């Protein structure tokens, strides 16, 4: 069984407030996920590199040209809390991770 503290640590890293019930649930889910994935651990992958892009493509770079930005009011329109053209956030404290 994956340690409960491990689930709490992941939830902190991912900024998810979990209830006790959720912690217990995800502790179980994470454990069974890892058990199910055990056979993956045994595959010999020593001779291959990882695939991060399934279909190789040439990377087309963008020319350094300025395009239109959004109007300020459109940018702020969906903001849950805005002030004087800025997005407002509550006090920033260092996280305990």
């Amino acid at each position, binding site marked *: 069984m994956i340690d409960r503290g491990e689930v709490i640590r992941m939830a902190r*890293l991912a*900024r998810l407030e979990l209830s006790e019930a959720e912690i217990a649930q995800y502790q179980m889910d994470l454990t069974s996920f890892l058990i199910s994935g055990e056979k993956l651990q045994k595959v010999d992958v020593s001779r291959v590199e*990882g695939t*991060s*892009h399934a279909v*190789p*493509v*040439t*990377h087309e*770079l*963008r*020319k*350094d*040209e*300025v*395009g*239109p*930005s*959004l*109007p*300020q009011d459109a*940018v*702020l329109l969906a903001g849950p809390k805005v*002030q*004087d*053209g*800025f*997005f*407002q*956030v*509550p*006090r*920033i*404290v*260092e*996280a*305990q*991770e």
Partner: protein
Amino acid sequence: MISYDTVIGLEIHVALLTQSKFLCSCKASFGAPPNSQCCPICLGLPGALPLINEKAVEYATKAGIALNCQINHFSRFDRKNYFYPDLPKAYQITQDTFPLCTKGFLEYYVDDRLVKTEITRIHMEEEAGKLIHSGASIVDSEYSLVDYNRAGIPLIEIVTAPDIHHPQQARLFLEQLRLLLSYIGVSDTKMEEGSLRCDANISLKPSGSNVLGTKVEIKNLNSFRALERALEYEERRQSQVLNQGGIIRQESCTWDDRTGKTMPMRSKGDAPDYRIFPEPDLPPLHLDPVWVELIRATIPELPLERLKRFEAEYGLSRYEATFLVNYPDFGELFFALACQCRAYKAIVNLLMGDYARLAREKGHLDPQRLAELLTIVDEGQITQTQAKDVLEDLFSSHLSAREIVQEKGLEVMGDPESLRPILRQVLGANSELVHRFQNGDTKLLGFFVGQVMRVTQGKADPGVVNRLLRDELGK
């Protein structure tokens, strides 16, 4: 007391001087109203995808070449995941495992010694937004305001090996690096505006030991002075702690310029877990070696090469050469003048002297006008003293040097026929001294020259006067 060796490594973030941002086409400039230079990409709106700015890659490559790096033809982008209100996607697109440039170095002078500091890597990444705190500092603020105009401006991070040995050397390194970056034109390198930022790692180890001590990271040093002072403070603090049998905690801290102290930010009991993995939205970057060579060809003469050239080709002193290198506008002016006038020392004396003072106030003169002044002086038409006056006038009038000389009636009296009567008058009035001179007191020649200059109000050409005097006195 044990003596310690100081070990310093630097991480420098440099904002690149592109027109548009790193991953989108919003304008990459400062000073606009908040959140007015933003688009779905730099705001991290759902579904928006990043696109790499070619110029940013070019500038990063250029910096790599100028810093003698290996330019990696394969490099890759990664996501560095962490939550912070100024980071719109909650991950930063950066290069972790496969950076663009590796294994370079920068050479610079420490006192009279040329030293080399290894550049471990240079990678590209995106800038975060800007926070404005409601209170005096982040911790005193009930809330903060976020402006994403800056989010997504291209940065390079330059990382040195830990082979800098004292705070002053760290400053000299950073000064040389800044100069180099401005020479290649990839950044405006303004530390006060944050387009050049420096973090420093410092640790102490017993002299001669190979084992590195625990390092402390000092963040966001925003001036050369702050860098040197913060490192000096930390060097002192660490050696005191160690000498009292204490241990150094690995931590990040900030530098407070007012108190002259470092302040711990957080203890790194848990190092942040950034969960870095390859950015799936961006394919790896394969640079064409031919393209890299084309970029290489655009690299101008770099500060150290130029310094050596000033010394070797123009016979300037280290001090003079350094002045011209550190102020590239003066360096360029020197080259322009040196084409027309071979009196290199006279040029540099002029530039470093009154000209520097005036040019800082009023801007540079057209090199042609300045060259004319140097020519007139070189030809002996006016004296050094007169040259100063003409120079002042060049800054305030549109006349050429020759015109000023004419207008002020400053021409040198170089005609022997008009000078000879004055000479004879002077000698006649000092017959006693003439006698002494003729009996071997040759030092008196200067006195006679001075008298002639006085009578002519400084207009007489000292060379001609000299020659004529020897002529007359030799009779």
